[in-house]
C-alpha cells in the first residue's frame, strides 16, 4: 500500500551549525483500509465493500459504510482515507444538487463519472487519498462500473476492485467473470454474462476470502445492487478477527 506514514505529528531534529532545531511535521493522510468491489452486468450493477475502519493496527469501528448513493442511478464506493471520502461525497452531493437545479433532471451515471474525475483532478497537488468505484446504470439501462485512481484518471470497465484487498480479489474476478476488454474492435460488451445472483455470490465469496488474508478487510460486507427496479442494500457478516 502506498502511504505508510502515521497520523501522529512527528518531531524531527535538524542540525544546523551544531544547533539541533526540532521541526515538527504533520502528515495529513492516513489509510483506513478496506476493500471495494464492483461488477457490471447486462441490466444490473453490484457494488460491495467491507465495513471495517482501521488505522495502523487498530480497528476504529466495525460498521462504517464505504458506499454512498449519489443519484438515482449512481452509487459510489470508496476505499482509502475516509475523511477525504466523506468530503468528496459532500462535494459531489453539492454539485449534483446544483446540476439538478440547473438542468431539471437527474445526473446520469456517465455524467457523474466525469464530474468525479474533474473533482479529483482539481486537487491534483493535494489529492483526495481515495480510490473510488462508481457503479450504476448507463443511459441505456446497462450496468456500468467506472474505476478511478487518486487524482481522477478513470475508465469504464466491466468490473473492478480497489483497496487493501485488491490484489487478492482481482485475479479471481479476472478468472470468473469472462468480461471482454472494452478496447477490442469491433466492440464487445464489457458487461459480465453472469446473472445478478451469481454476481452477488461471487462478491460474497471473494470478500470472505479477502477477509481471510488481508488484516484490513473483515467484519461485514455491505452489498448494494442497482437494477431497473431500483437500489437495494444487503449486509453479510464476515469474520471479525
Amino acid at each position, binding site marked *: 500500500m*502506498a*502511504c505508510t*506514514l502515521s497520523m501522529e505529528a512527528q518531531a524531527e531534529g535538524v542540525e544546523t551549525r551544531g544547533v539541533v532545531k526540532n521541526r515538527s511535521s504533520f502528515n495529513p*493522510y492516513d489509510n483506513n483500509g478496506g476493500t471495494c468491489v464492483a461488477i457490471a452486468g447486462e441490466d444490473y450493477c453490484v457494488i460491495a465493500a467491507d465495513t471495517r475502519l482501521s488505522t495502523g493496527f487498530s480497528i476504529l469501528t466495525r460498521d462504517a459504510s464505504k458506499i454512498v448513493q449519489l443519484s438515482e442511478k449512481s452509487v459510489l464506493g470508496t476505499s482509502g482515507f475516509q475523511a477525504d471520502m466523506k468530503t468528496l461525497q459532500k462535494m459531489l452531493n453539492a454539485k449534483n444538487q*446544483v446540476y439538478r437545479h440547473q438542468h431539471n433532471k437527474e445526473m446520469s451515471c456517465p455524467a457523474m463519472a466525469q464530474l468525479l*474525475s*474533474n473533482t*479529483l*483532478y*482539481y*486537487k*491534483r*497537488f*493535494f*489529492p483526495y*487519498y481515495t480510490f473510488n468505484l462508481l457503479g450504476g446504470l448507463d443511459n441505456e439501462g446497462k450496468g456500468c462500473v467506472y*474505476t478511478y*485512481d*487518486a*487524482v*481522477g*484518471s*478513470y*475508465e469504464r*470497465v466491466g468490473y473492478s476492485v480497489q483497496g487493501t484487498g485488491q*490484489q487478492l480479489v482481482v485475479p479471481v474476478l479476472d478468472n470468473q467473470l469472462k468480461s471482454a*476488454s*472494452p*478496447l*477490442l*474492435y469491433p*466492440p464487445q460488451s464489457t458487461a459480465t454474462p453472469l446473472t445478478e445472483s451469481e454476481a452477488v455470490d461471487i462478491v460474497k465469496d471473494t470478500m470472505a476470502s479477502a477477509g481471510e488474508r488481508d488484516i484490513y478487510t473483515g467484519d461485514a460486507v455491505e452489498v448494494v445492487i442497482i437494477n431497473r427496479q431500483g437500489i437495494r442494500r444487503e449486509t453479510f457478516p464476515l469474520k471479525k478477527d
Partner: protein
Amino acid sequence: MRTDLSCLDPPTLCRSRLPGLGAEEDVMGLLEKTVPGRLELPQVADLDAFEKSAVQMVKPSKGTTTLAFIYKDGVVVAVDSRASMGPYISSQTVKKVIEINPYLLGTMAGGAADCQFWQRNLGLRCRLHELGNKKRISVAGASKLLANILFSYRGMGLSMGTMIAGWDDTGPNVYYIDSDGARLKGQRFSVGSGSTYAYGVLDAGYKWDLKKEAACELGRRAIYHATFRDAASGGTVSVYHIGPDGWEKISGDDVNDLHYAYYPVQSTQQTPPEQSMTDVASTSSS
C-alpha cells in the same frame, strides 16, 4: 479589441477558480476560464517534499508503448493498454488514445490523470478556437496550447509524454509533447518503456509511400513486438488512422491473439525452447 496577453503573466499561485460555474460570457472571457486558473497548491512549508510523498499515491506509470507516424495518406497512431503500479498490473484495458475531437488524437504515457484531464481541456480550447476563428485549429496550434500549459506547470510533478496527431491544412502532422515543456514536430515518434522495441520494428518497415492497410499493420506489429519484450507493456493493441476527414479506429486486438496469428504453433515441428534444463551428470560420490 485589445489582445489578451494575460497568458504571458507569471503564474500566480493559489488563485483558485472553479471553472464551469460562471455566468454566460463572451468567447474570449470563456477562454480565460478554460484554464483552471492555477490548480490550488497546499499551504505547506516544504512543497517539494510534500509533493514527493503525495506522488507516491499516484505512481505515474511510464510503463507503456505508444507510437505515431505520418505517411502519404495520413497518420497512424498505435498504443498498448497496460498500466502498471510498480510490479502490479493495475489495468490491462487503459484507453491510451484520447479522442480530443473528431480530427485530433492524443496519446497517453506517464500520469494517466494528467493526460486525460489536460487533453480533455485541450479539446475544450480547440473548440473555442473554432468558434472564435471560424476555422479548425491546426495541429501546430493545438500542440502549442498544450505545451504552454505544461511548461507553466513545469517542476510541479505533472508527468506526461504525449503525442498530438491530426490532419490539418498542411497535411498530416504529429507533435511530441512532454511535461518538461518539450514540443517537437516529427515524422515518427514512440513513447514509453517499450518505445525502443517499437522503434526497431517501425524504423525498419517505414516508407512514406505505404498504403493505409500496410501502415496500420506496421503500427500494430511494432506495438506487438514491444509488448512481447517489455514487461510493462501489454493488453490490447489499438490502432487508429487519421485521414483528411478525421480519425477512425481501425482495430483493437489482444496481444495474445496477435502472437499466435503472427507465429502460429506448428504441431509437427517442435521449436526448441530458448532455455532448457539439462540433466546433471550423476557422479558416484561420497
